[in-house]
């Protein structure tokens, strides 16, 4: 972003990579897949790179409103400094925070989750998917809480799966009643409280009930939780967990 700004250019959209997308080895693949899709569609995008910082979501949900608002203040200063108007992100937590919680702190942007953004690119004909990599494959989709219930986005990710010519099989608990993967509310960063089961195992079992070939996710944290769940069930050879960006990139022969 800094380089473009120095040249006096404004990108079409800012890609907010997020902490997971920047540092987590698994999530980095999602970041790259989405970047390739943007390049293929000819979208002029920028990233903040080293100027990006955590949105503050896990701090806020853990109860540290102070740290959250400090993070927000810094990020908003950077975003407003570059005159950013439109943001796309592959993380529903960043998406929710930027879209819903930053406006009240002086950060007003048009914020899109990458599934909606990709849906628009396909609709506008900027991104075409040839090759039937996933034709007829059984794919089940896990609704991330912060995309689904939190922001009412259920259709865009499903529309993308249909674009793949794949067979979308729904889990018993889906859409508004989708079961959490167990990572939200800062749970990702701590051990779970005492119980008789891990939430990600419960969700993985439900996903396995649909006899899928692929479990599609739309959140780097859900991805981790489900990947761990599948490994726990020793099914990682047969069943893969992919983000929708990765599925689309594979279908577009970008990987």
């Amino acid at each position, binding site marked *: 972003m800094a380089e473009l700004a120095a040249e006096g250019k404004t990108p079409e959209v800012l890609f907010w990579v997020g902490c997971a997308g920047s540092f987590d080895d698994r999530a980095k693949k999602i970041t790259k897949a989405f970047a390739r899709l943007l390049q293929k569609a000819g979208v002029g995008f920028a990233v903040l790179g080293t100027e990006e910082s955590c949105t503050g979501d896990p701090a806020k949900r853990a*109860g540290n409103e102070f740290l959250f608002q400090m*993070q927000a203040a810094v990020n908003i200063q950077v975003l407003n400094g570059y005159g950013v108007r439109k943001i796309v992100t592959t993380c529903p937590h960043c998406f929710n925070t930027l879209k819903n919680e930053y406006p009240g702190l002086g950060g007003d942007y048009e914020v899109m989750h990458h599934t909606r953004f990709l849906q628009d690119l396909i609709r506008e004909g900027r991104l075409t998917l040839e090759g039937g990599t996933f034709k007829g494959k059984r794919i089940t989709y896990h609704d991330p809480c912060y995309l689904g*219930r939190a922001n009412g986005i259920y259709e865009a990710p499903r529309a993308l799966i249909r674009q793949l010519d794949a067979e979308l099989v729904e889990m018993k608990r889906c859409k508004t009643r989708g079961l959490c993967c167990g990572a939200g509310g800062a749970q990702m960063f701590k051990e779970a409280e005492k119980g008789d089961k891990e*939430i990600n195992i*419960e969700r993985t079992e439900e996903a396995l009930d649909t006899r899928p070939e692929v479990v599609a996710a739309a959140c780097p944290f859900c991805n981790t939780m489900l990947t761990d769940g599948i490994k726990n069930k020793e099914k990682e050879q047969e069943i893969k967990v992919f983000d929708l960006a990765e599925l689309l990139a594979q279908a577009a022969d970008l990987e």
Partner: protein
Amino acid sequence: MEYLPNILFLLALVAGVGFFSRNIHRLIRNIRLGREVTPEGPRSERWKNMARIALGQQKMVVRPLAGILHMIVYVGFIIINIEVLEIIIDGLLGTHRVFAFLGPVYDFLIGSFEILALLVIVAVILFWLRRNVVKLARFWKPEMKGWPKKDADWILYIEFVLMCLFLTMNAADFRLQELGEAHYVQAGAFPVSSILAQAFQGMSAASLVVLERAAWWLHILGILFFLNYLYYSKHLHILLAFPNTWWASLSPKGEMGNLESVKREVALMMDPNADPFAAPAADAPPPEKFGASDVMDLTRVQLLAAYTCTECGRCTSECPANQTGKKLSPRKIMMDTRDRLEEVGRALTASGGAWEPDGKQLLDDYITREELWACTTCNACTEACPVSIDPLSIILDMRRYLVMEQSAAPSELNVMMGNVENNGAPWPFNQMDRLNWASENETSA
């Protein structure tokens, strides 16, 4: 002596309504202990929500069987209240079936009340079976032990008895009309009680009058009793569902409000001209408490919600933490908030209005930290609630107290927050490495 029944009726009515309004005043006083909130967003949207969710029962039917049964009891309750209006007028004036002049309309009304009453009896029996024979898991969670369980059953028994009294009254009336008894005007259609009346065939007019009067009195006294039972019961939802849906947040569920008190602090920290050593003005109010450790720290909307909760447990049955055996139950969060608020309210009544700290609070004495830290903030509970209660907001406010006032977060979360503070990410990675993904192997973005 002629007016004795009228006078007794008036006394019962005044006592019943008077006691009820005393309790409603207490309820309002207790809710007002909470922090004030101004409703945001368009009011028209709020009215629409109330019409859709409370009046229209939109979220009840997400679970079709319970939804339909509830709809029957709900419609029955509202419609049959037209009959209560007639009973009150009759009781005060000494008339009998004062609305009889409506003719065919009256026949239609009484006929539909009867059918509804029968349907309510069926629904109530099915509800009882679901609780006590089928034993649906959500009715048998730990927080349902004791009074909550009895309360739920009592409500069903009272409704059952009230409907039976209503039909008995009509059945006796029907027989008396057949016998052409004076004072019993020929009015009404009795599709259900006419069948019941066959059991009264052998009875004399005098005993029928006794039966009819007894059922009539017990029915109206039962209704006045039930009205006053509400305040002591989870059944308050029949009234509070309406204001609660009106006051419910209009924002996307994912949005958690930005604390104003923190906003001021952060603005001060970010202001290069602020004097870090400035002493607060002598008349400055004491710094606001961050988050909530007791009911007075919560908002009025949260306290209203605590009274509104009818302990159906849909939230708990959808909660991922509860489903995997953790202690957290969103329903218990609401029940605890209400029970603590009632405790504070009772102390206020006893002391004449002045609050003396009682050494207890909502945190730890009611809601444990283990429950609070088990939440994934997934919003399944708020989505499931048929009357738009938000247990998650209470959990978050209590976490805020633990973290910002007590520095009592689980140590792993402290590590995470330290990382966010120092490297701008929840993990210990260097911010300067944020763009490394772009240069790793093939791509250059």
